[in-house]
């Protein structure tokens, strides 16, 4: 694989004896949409602030596009576009003037790109209105436009789905995936896991300041056993049959009943086949036997609750 665009190595931040972030490491490659997940207060924003040079790490190394943030911060930041926490802009200026303010800091090419990025985020019609009159969704889009002005290799978005309606979120998803297809690395933090699952291919999960899992979503989820849910006509009889099947293979597992009346247990494909024939033999009609893929949200709750780690 190519060189990582963003490489974070054993990052640590301490403020007056409190460790906000410790031993955080991960790599983000070109073309990846990388999700940075964790509950509120886990250290996501602190980590992002260190990546973009707003906060000085107590220990560890951050490299962006080959430049070390500690020793070469200006060169490193020229490779980055970012929104930290909220899309920040001057409400008393128009969208265009806001873009111009930042573009002028980054040179002539950025100034020439203003119309291009405005079109990219579909703001060209409202560009000359004051930002004060923008909705939160439009501010998010203007924020992304600001971040893209310098044609970055790495786009960092902190909670980008905040304030977006479902249509806006879907639009953002296709937009970011298109950007990633062109080779941009996108780094997204969020606590909304269902969004991230659809958006990202790789994730790092952070809790209490440390990264506890990192990798491709598919690989992470493949390691977990999957539940099978059964819809049958006689749940009580069926429960006994299922428990017998499990026990006969030496598995001590519980069969639980979901709120909708279907039975849920964990078993492999072979056992499912055996259970189906046994149920029929016992006169239970099977309407549905469905394997439920564990969602990132379930995985996240298992991982962050501590018990399952």
């Amino acid at each position, binding site marked *: 694989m190519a060189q990582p665009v963003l490489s974070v190595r054993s990052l640590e931040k301490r403020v007056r004896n409190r460790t906000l972030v410790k031993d955080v490491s991960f790599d983000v490659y070109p073309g990846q949409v990388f999700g940075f997940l964790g509950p509120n207060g886990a250290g996501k924003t602190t980590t992002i602030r260190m990546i973009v040079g707003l906060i*000085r790490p107590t220990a560890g190394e951050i490299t962006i596009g080959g430049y070390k943030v500690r020793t070469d911060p200006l060169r490193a930041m020229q490779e980055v576009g970012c929104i930290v926490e909220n899309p920040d802009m001057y409400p008393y200026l128009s969208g265009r003037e806001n873009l111009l303010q930042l573009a*002028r800091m*980054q040179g002539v090419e950025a100034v020439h790109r203003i119309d291009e990025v405005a079109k990219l985020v579909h703001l060209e019609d409202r560009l000359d209105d004051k930002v004060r009159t923008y909705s939160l969704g439009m501010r998010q889009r203007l924020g992304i436009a600001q971040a893209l002005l310098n044609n970055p290799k790495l786009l960092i978005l902190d909670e980008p789905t905040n304030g977006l309606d479902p249509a806006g979120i879907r639009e953002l998803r296709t937009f970011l995936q298109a950007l990633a297809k062109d080779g941009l690395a996108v780094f997204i933090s969020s606590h909304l896991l269902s969004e991230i699952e659809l958006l990202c291919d790789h994730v790092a999960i952070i809790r209490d300041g440390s990264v506890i899992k990192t990798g491709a979503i598919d690989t992470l989820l493949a390691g977990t056993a999957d539940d099978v849910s059964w819809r049958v006509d006689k749940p009580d009889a069926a429960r006994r049959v299922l428990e017998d099947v499990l026990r006969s293979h030496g598995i001590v597992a519980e069969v639980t009943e979901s709120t909708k009346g279907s039975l849920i247990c964990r078993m492999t494909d072979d056992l499912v086949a055996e259970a189906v024939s046994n149920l029929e033999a016992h006169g239970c009609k099977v309407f549905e036997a469905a394997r439920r893929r564990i969602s990132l949200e379930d995985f996240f709750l298992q991982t962050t609750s501590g018990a399952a780690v």
Partner: protein
Amino acid sequence: MFWQLVSNEIVKMLRKRRFQVVMAILLVLMAVFSYAEHEAILVMVRQLGTTDWHVRLQQEITHDLNRLHNPFASAAEKAGIQATLAEAQYELSHNINPYAPGAPSFMHTFMDEGITLLIPLFVIVIASDMVSSEMSGGTIKMLLTRGVSRTRILASKLVALFLLVAMLFAAIAITSYVVSGAFFGYGGFGLPVIMGFQTSANGTVDISHVYTLPQWEYLLMTFGLGFFACLAVASLAFMVSTLVRSTASSMGIMMAGLIAGTLLTALASNWTLAKYLPVVNLQLMNYLNGTPPPVAGMTFAFSLGVLVIWSAAALVISFQVFARKDIMG
């Protein structure tokens, strides 16, 4: 590139309308002051029963002489009275009309009086916002993640602030001329102004070095010194603005300091250490016309030095802190 940053800062300040509000207040104040002064002259003429300025000046001298014999007047007050007395006598004997009306005279008075409180207040209103507003608005994160060094960004803000103070002074000059001219007429740039009185602490006045300057030359000096004093105020407010997150508290701190300082100036003769405070040294133009300083032993060079040292220290602290600061939420 650097000037693009400076122009960004000036655009922001002008679009925020903070500068315009200051200008509007200035215009109203000028009109009120001019009107009040105009009325005062009419009342004076009615009381004296003549428009002859010799009569008025003679009355002032008599009044001052009486005050001088007041047993309750302190030595410092007496020195002040001696100075005005000497000036009046000099004017009378050289046939110079100190009350000659005209827009330039008004400008001169406005700057002399305004520099103690009013003009520094305007400077503080502008300067306190420079850095704090970016902190409280969150936009500082955008500024600092653009691949431009923090020192450069702060320097551009400082240069923009100094330019804005210069614009403020130009605006004061223009508005005070235009507005007061409507009351007093627009001539009078050539009128003589008396310079070179030297008042010692014990109240003796040395008139051996007295000379006159045309009004316009005196105005240039007054505005120049006022500008210099206000750059010192701007530097201090700029430091507070870098240290404090909210514009309101940064403005509050500076205003409290300024007002406490003007009160101190009145009391300072009893507390000599006060002469090392910047606010006590703002009235640089008083050294031009021989008004005794608030604390004995202060000289023009001393005041300049105090202002320069405070400003330099404030700017060093601003840049040091800003370059290292962690921008937390």
